[in-house]
């Protein structure tokens, strides 16, 4: 596990705003990232997450606000002086150079003078061969960590996507940066490799123990790799928290919809003033203290629903079973609510649960779904979560 650091040594963003022309991309984003943390910026495309990362890297200047890295304001510093390294979605390897030369570049830039980097003129430097030997030894060490030592003489077009990815990681690692920035680094890989690289990146983070800021639109990557996730939409951070926070206590309907696969079921309901919410005529006892007639949106995680006997004790939604998907260990039941709206609803159960339900004859076309309150979330008309305490507040209004 990465050692816990302090915010002062990490990355602190305050009041970041950015517009491109008349399009506002970021509005007053503040974020304190602890040293050693794996923070993921996740959100739909166009939410501003990549722009935020590029502002941290120094590739883009913020209109307002400030970036501090390791307790030092870096707003005025060029990218290479910020002690950050970045892995690009396209890897951005130099196509005419070998993997070794690609990885060596950041070190050459730092340890050789300009004259020692120029063609022909560099031959005049007596110390260049010694410096280059040192650089190449470090390149080799990094390549061995990433298991690409045998590929060092190849050029990018002779490498597979996964191998290029590793070279790009090597180029970022070799200079031992304080912060590792990654912009959708896995999205150009095929599905199987993506899953594999996910765990490799997480392992890399654990081994290096430095701060990772990772941008993705894939909520699965965000959930599986991060210590904390910042979910962004339209230039704002909607919620910042651990993956469990976002999944179990989504702050807004938008967060609830974005996190989780298959997505959360969203149903419209109305509080009955006696601690219940009516959805299509069914009463769920999940709304303590809401005033009668309050319109609410109910989010129910697919795994919070179970096929049940029509005589089941608790609240039961009646639905029509449309389609069944077998994912091996899990089954997805696609149904529509029995009411006039024909609202689609997805149920996730394990294979064992499915077998038991099948034996009990619960999977007929008319299906009853028991609702577990723990996977159920209430949102007000403004999309904000109604927590237990807030429910009382709303009810008092």
């Amino acid at each position, binding site marked *: 596990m990465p050692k816990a650091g302090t915010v002062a040594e990490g990355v602190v963003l305050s009041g970041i705003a950015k517009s491109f022309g008349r399009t506002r991309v970021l509005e007053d984003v503040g974020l304190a990232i602890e040293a050693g943390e794996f923070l993921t910026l996740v959100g739909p495309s166009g939410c501003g997450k990549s722009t935020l990362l590029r502002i941290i890297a120094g*590739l883009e200047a913020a209109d307002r606000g400030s970036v501090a890295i390791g307790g030092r304001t870096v707003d005025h510093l060029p990218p290479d002086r910020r002690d950050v390294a970045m892995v690009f979605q396209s890897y951005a390897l130099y196509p*005419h150079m070998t993997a070794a030369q690609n990885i060596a570049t950041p070190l050459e*830039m730092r340890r050789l003078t300009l004259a020692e980097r120029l063609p022909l003129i560099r031959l005049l430097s007596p110390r260049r061969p010694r410096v280059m030997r040192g650089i190449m030894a470090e390149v080799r060490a990094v390549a061995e960590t990433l298991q690409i030592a045998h590929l060092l003489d190849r050029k990018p077009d002779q490498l597979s996507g996964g191998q290029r990815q590793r070279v790009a990681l090597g180029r970022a690692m070799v200079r031992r940066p304080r912060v590792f920035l990654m912009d959708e680094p896995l999205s150009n890989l095929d599905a199987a490799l993506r899953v594999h690289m996910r765990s490799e990146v997480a392992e890399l983070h654990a081994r290096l123990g430095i701060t990772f800021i990772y941008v993705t639109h894939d909520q699965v990557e965000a959930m599986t790799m991060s210590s904390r996730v910042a979910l962004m939409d339209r230039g704002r951070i909607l919620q910042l928290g651990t993956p469990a926070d976002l999944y179990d206590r989504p702050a807004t309907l938008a967060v609830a919809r974005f996190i989780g696969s298959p997505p959360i079921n969203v149903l419209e309901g109305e509080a009955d003033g006696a601690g219940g919410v009516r959805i299509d005529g069914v009463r769920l006892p999940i709304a303590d203290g809401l005033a009668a007639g309050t319109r609410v949106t109910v989010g129910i995680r697919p795994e919070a629903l179970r096929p049940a006997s029509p005589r089941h004790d608790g609240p039961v939604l009646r639905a029509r079973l449309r389609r069944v998907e077998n994912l091996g260990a899990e089954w997805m039941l696609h149904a529509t609510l029995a009411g006039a709206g024909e609202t689609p609803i997805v149920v996730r159960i394990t294979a064992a649960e499915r077998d038991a339900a099948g034996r009990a004859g619960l999977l007929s076309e008319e299906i009853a779904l028991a609702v577990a309150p723990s996977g159920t979330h209430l949102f007000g008309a403004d999309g904000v979560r109604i927590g237990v305490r807030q429910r009382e507040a709303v009810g008092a209004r």
Partner: protein
Amino acid sequence: MSARTPQARTEARWGAIFAAPALLLILTILLAPLVVLVALSVTDYRLGAIALRLVGFDNYAAMLADPVLQRSLRNTFLYVAFVLPAAVFGGLGVALLVHARIHTRTVYEVIYFLPVTSTLVAMATVWQFMLHPTLGPVTPLASTLGFGRIDLLNDPDLALGTLALIGIWQLIGFNMVLFLAGLSAIPRELYEAAALDGARHGADRFLRVTWPMLGPTTMFVTVTSTVTAFKVFDTVVVLTRGGPLGSTETLLYILYLEGFQYFRMGYAAAMTVVLLVFLAGLSILQARVIERRVHYA
């Protein structure tokens, strides 16, 4: 072949039918003239003559002994040696400068491209006026700067160089457009990766990203500029007619004189064959040499 199925045969027949029009066009438009050219080069054909005689390689042998041709070859090589580097690197330099402009880029593009769009014959007339020893502004300007009363087009030592300058003036705009296209195709992320790697100096960015990524463009620009420079003709005809003292006689101009002024078509054809072989060889050589250093990303 005998094992072919009926379907395969039908397919092959239709394939041949569909390919025939293109093949026919290639034969008549591109290859037939070449064949005629090579055939003419071994005759003593004169334009308008009724009879012609096969002379074998006499025309080619005559070329070896032709002092005018040899002088024109030397002039042409000098011209190319002067024009090629300036046109390629000048075009690259201008493209780099124009590419860095954001709002005025289009304006500069149009300005530099103007010489390409205007016909060289018309522009040569303008140059003739500019360089005229008594009417044009260049000679007085040169004398004010202390160069004396130079007459650029009538001085045997300067005339070829003057034509070369005009050639460069015309080629730079064209090459700039090609380099601009090449520059636009370089992924921005490469420059960003270079910025993070610490390539803060312009020289580093140029050597690590721009120049290698422009490889294919540079190859194309070099080959087309070489061919264009070798075929210098219109400025010679309009401005100097090969003079003074044959100092601006170039290969194509001599070829034109032999063929269309002296009507010695056989000899002109032989010269054309040599020029063609030469240009083709040069292009292949350049392509081979540069190809090894080029990376098509």
